[in-house]
Each structure stands twice: as C-alpha cells, then as structure tokens.
C-alpha cells in the first residue's frame, strides 16, 4: 500500500503515545506469530501443586485453578483473540465496501433504500444483534465472528459511502471523465483506490473494537468457551474465583484494554496522517 509512504518530516514528528502504541502492537504481533519467544511455558501445562498463585516473579500474572501460568495463556490466547478480531473486521469491511460503494455510486433511489436499511441496522446495538444471532445459531467461534462482523458493518458502510461521495467530487475524477475514460475505468483506477485510502486506519480501529465485543460475549459465557486461552474465555474462566483471586479477571482484562488502546491510538494516528496525505 502506498499509504505507508509518509512524508519524511511527518515521520520524524512521532508523539510518545504513538511510539508506545507501536511497541505494544509489535509485542502483540510477536505473540501472534511466535508465542514461544515471549514465554517458555506451555499454556496448557497443569500443575496442581501451584494452583491460584498470585502474581510473582516466577508467574507474572499468577496461576489459575489448574495451576496453569496465566501470562503464558494470555500470550497464546493472542492468536485466537486477534483471529476473531481480524475475521470479524474483514467480514464487516466486505459488507461495508459492497453496500457503501453501491450506495455511493448509484445514488438516487438505490442510495436512499440502502441508507434506510442502514438506519434500521443502527437501531440494533452490536452486542444485542450478536446475542440474537447466538441465540439462533448457538455459541461457537464462527457465530461470534459472524455476529460481531455483521453487527459492526453498518457503521463502516456509512463511512465508505461518505468516502465514495466525497472522492467522486474530486477534480481528478472529473478530469479523467473529461479525458474520455470509461466510467468503469475511472471507478477502478481512481475512485476505488482513493476511496479505500482510510480503510487501513478503519481496520486498525475495527480490530480493537471487535476484540472488545468478542471478549464481552465470552465474558457472558456466550462466546468462545473456557478451555481456550482466548482473552474473553480467560475472563469467563476467572469469574468463579473473583473474590479470592481477582488477578485472573483483572490482568487478562488489562491486556485487552492495553491492546485496544494501542490499536485505537494507532488507528487514529494513521487516520490523521492519511487525511493529511490526501490533501
């Protein structure tokens, strides 16, 4: 993507928050690709001699009721949590791009109908729409991804539509029409790439948000089920011991918060940069 080619001076003006976010995301990517680099333990190794230990030097996040090292489980859970986040965001984006482009390009009647459909979809909060789908299909990894993806699609669809309407007014679009390019060629070569510009930023924001939704569902016991080290499932598993071993609940939650904050902050920075580059 050309989006990465930032102006040299802009690259130098890095805020501390951005640096921290990049570092956090880098650690997450390592946990995603090679969790073995961040921990030497096995996420499923049961040790009944050391159950429910509070955080210490040997167990940074403490241990759970089966003596499994919580830090190791969080590291290995990254893959599943991000898998859900990526899957749900990708699904939402596909729906959003199709709806947004059709509405933005067709305008008129088709646009009105699609926009009204989006208004209706907006009346359903993401969590409740997800719960309705889970009630119908039963809780599973696939249902969670589909539920969160469909739930968050309308917001993105509205953004894509706005972007298409904005870009099609640009001078270079009119110029290429005037030069005699076919409608399809203009859409493919100019409109599509330019309207897609903010998408990298939107996806970064979307992944963080999807992880929060999915872990919320798991927390309610309606998402990914406990033996899995998915972050929400860890929260669900820790609930029984909340009064005696609160770290089982607070630390995985903190990881979700930090990961989401880093992704959100990075997404916002990208958004500002790309807006600047588009001018």
């Amino acid at each position: 993507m050309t989006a990465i080619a930032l102006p040299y001076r802009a690259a130098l003006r890095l805020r501390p928050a951005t640096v921290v976010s990049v570092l956090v995301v880098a650690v997450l990517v390592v946990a995603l690709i090679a969790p073995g680099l961040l921990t030497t333990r096995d996420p499923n190794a049961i040790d009944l001699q050391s159950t429910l230990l509070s955080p210490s030097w040997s167990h940074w996040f403490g241990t759970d009721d089966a003596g499994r090292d919580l830090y190791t489980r969080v590291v290995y859970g990254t893959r599943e949590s991000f898998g859900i986040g990526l899957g749900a965001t990708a699904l939402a984006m596909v729906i959003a791009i199709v709806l947004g482009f059709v509405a933005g390009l067709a305008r008129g009647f088709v646009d009105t109908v699609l926009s009204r459909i989006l208004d209706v979809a907006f009346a359903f909060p993401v969590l409740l729409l997800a719960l309705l789908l889970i009630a119908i299909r039963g809780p599973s990894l696939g249902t969670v991804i589909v539920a969160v993806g469909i739930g968050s699609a309308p917001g993105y669809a509205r953004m894509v539509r706005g972007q298409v309407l904005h870009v099609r007014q640009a001078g270079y679009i009119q110029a290429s029409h005037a030069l005699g390019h076919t409608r399809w060629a203009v859409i493919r070569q100019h409109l599509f790439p330019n309207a897609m510009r903010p998408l990298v930023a939107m996806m970064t924001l979307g992944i963080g948000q999807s992880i929060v939704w999915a872990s919320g569902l798991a927390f309610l016991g309606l998402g990914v089920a406990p033996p899995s080290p998915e972050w929400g499932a860890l929260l669900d598993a820790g609930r029984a011991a909340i009064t005696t071993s609160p770290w089982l609940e607070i630390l995985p939650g903190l990881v979700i918060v930090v990961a989401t904050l880093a992704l959100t902050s990075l997404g916002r920075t990208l958004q500002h940069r790309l807006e600047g580059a588009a001018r």
Partner: protein
Amino acid sequence: MTTAVLPRALSVPSWVRTARGALLKIATAAIVLVAAASITFFAQLLVPGDRATAILNQQTGRAQQYTTAELAPVNAQFGFDRPLISQYLDYVTGLFRGDLGTSYTQHRPVTEIIGDQIGPSLVLTAAALVTAWVLAVGITLLTVKRRRAVSALGSTWEALTASLPPYWIGVVLLVVFAVQLRIFPVIGETSARGTVLPVLTLAIPLAGFLGQVTRDEFEKVLDQPFITTARTRGMSDTAVRLRHALRHSVVPAITLSGWALGALLSGAVIAENVFGRPGIGQVLVTAVNTRDVPTVSGIVLVVAGVYVIANLVVDLAYTVVDPRLRAS
C-alpha cells in the same frame, strides 16, 4: 431535509412546515420500527432444524425426534402450522397491541417477562445517563482551556475511559469497592447501595465519550467573538463558561443521548451480569443460553424501539429549541 424553494412570502406558514416535518419524522420512525420487527421475525426462521422439535427438546432436556402427533400441539400453540405470511402479519400487528410472542421455555407472553424485569434495568440506565452527564460536564468545565497540564489530564482521562470495556470497569469496581474495601455489597441488589457500582460501570465510559464531544465543542465556542465580547464587558471566567459556553457546547452531546440510551441498555446486560443484579440483561443472557429466540428477539426489539423513540424525541425537541434547524 428539504430546503424551501419558494420565497418566504409565498411559502406556507412556518408552523405548518414544522408540523409537516414532525409528522414525516414520526412516520419514518414507525417504518424503521416495523422494519426492525421484520428483521427479528425473519431471524427466528433461521433457527436450524424444526422449531417445534427444538422446543420439545428444550422442555424435556433431551435430543430426539418426535412423531407428527407429538409435534402438532406445539405447532398449533406457536402457530408454526399457519402460512408464513399470516405468521408475519400477526407478529407485526401484535407489536401494536403490545404482543411480542410467547417464550419457548417459559410458555408465557414475552411482554409479561420483559414487564416483570425491566424496572431495575430502567433505573440503572437512567441513573447512568444522568451520572455520565454530570461527570462529563463537570470534568469539561474544570479542565477545558486551562493550564496545559490540566487540559491534557482531562482529555487523557476521557480518551482512556471512553475505550474501557464495561465488563472490565465492572470487575475492577467490584474487586476494589465491594471485595477489598467492603463499601458496597458484592452480590447485586436493587437497593440504592447495590446500584452505585453498576451505575458507575456504565457511566464512566459514557462520560468519557460525551466529554470528548463536549470538549471539542467547548474549545471552539471559547474562541468565538461573543465570548470575547462577554469578557470585555468584564464577565468573570467562571460566568463566561457557565452562562455562555456551556449551553453551546452540550448541544452535540445531547444529540448523542438518544444513541447513548441504546448503548446503555446493551451495556446494562453486562453490568447486571457482573454484579448479579436482576433485570432485563439477566433474562436476556438466560434466554440466549436456552435458545429462547422469541424472548431474545423481544428484548432486542424493545431496545431498538427505545433507541428509535429516544432519537425521535431528541430530533423533535431540536426543531422546537433551535430556530436554525426550523428555517432549513
């Protein structure tokens, strides 16, 4: 919104246009509600397998096939034996009579189930909305356009709290104030003392969000000429903030209150779950677990309805309050 093409003198009186606009908005809201109801109706058809079999299995706790004779009374009770179109029309017209169908597991009207449990949830939601507003306005008034460190503190706090997931805030509040400090009860009660922590769980992230919106607007307003005028008249900083800037800066956040009500009701599902507090959220989670689709759809539809009506009210109140919107 349409712009008046006719010159003022020839156009219809303004109150007629206002009334017409209001009627149009009410009609649109009604259409959105019917469309939302259609979605929940057709969603029920997506239940895998035969619904009557699923209901019987749910009742008996078994997973087996039944004979047509065994399924017949269930099909008749829920109307599955009737043509789809008449089921659909029944469902939609039923909504206007306050009928949301019958629960698969409790075998009583969904409206009754919701009616029994919605009280504590409404108290929680309303209290959270008020608390969020007080927090947001208070923090904005105190920190916006002050010394750099103070302003930065305010906006960092907002950015941080706005992105906290409700289940995590709930857990932290529970552990700190109920388990460790023992100020509030651990097990959810609907008493005032038991309501404090759930309310804060919902109010803190919402306050962060409303605060961000209000702060942006506040900063813009403080740069406006009429603020400078007020200052040159010798008005104190506090008076300028309270009497002039505040009124303008809360407008965009008020628009979001309709949306916030929907968000709070869905957040209440999680807050009630964390604190074991009775309410519609608990009913919803149980219903999702037992695959009681009519109850789930009913609750989802009620929340969607609250969202649509709240937005309609905000929208209508606006045209009355803000003359700039009436003109266009």
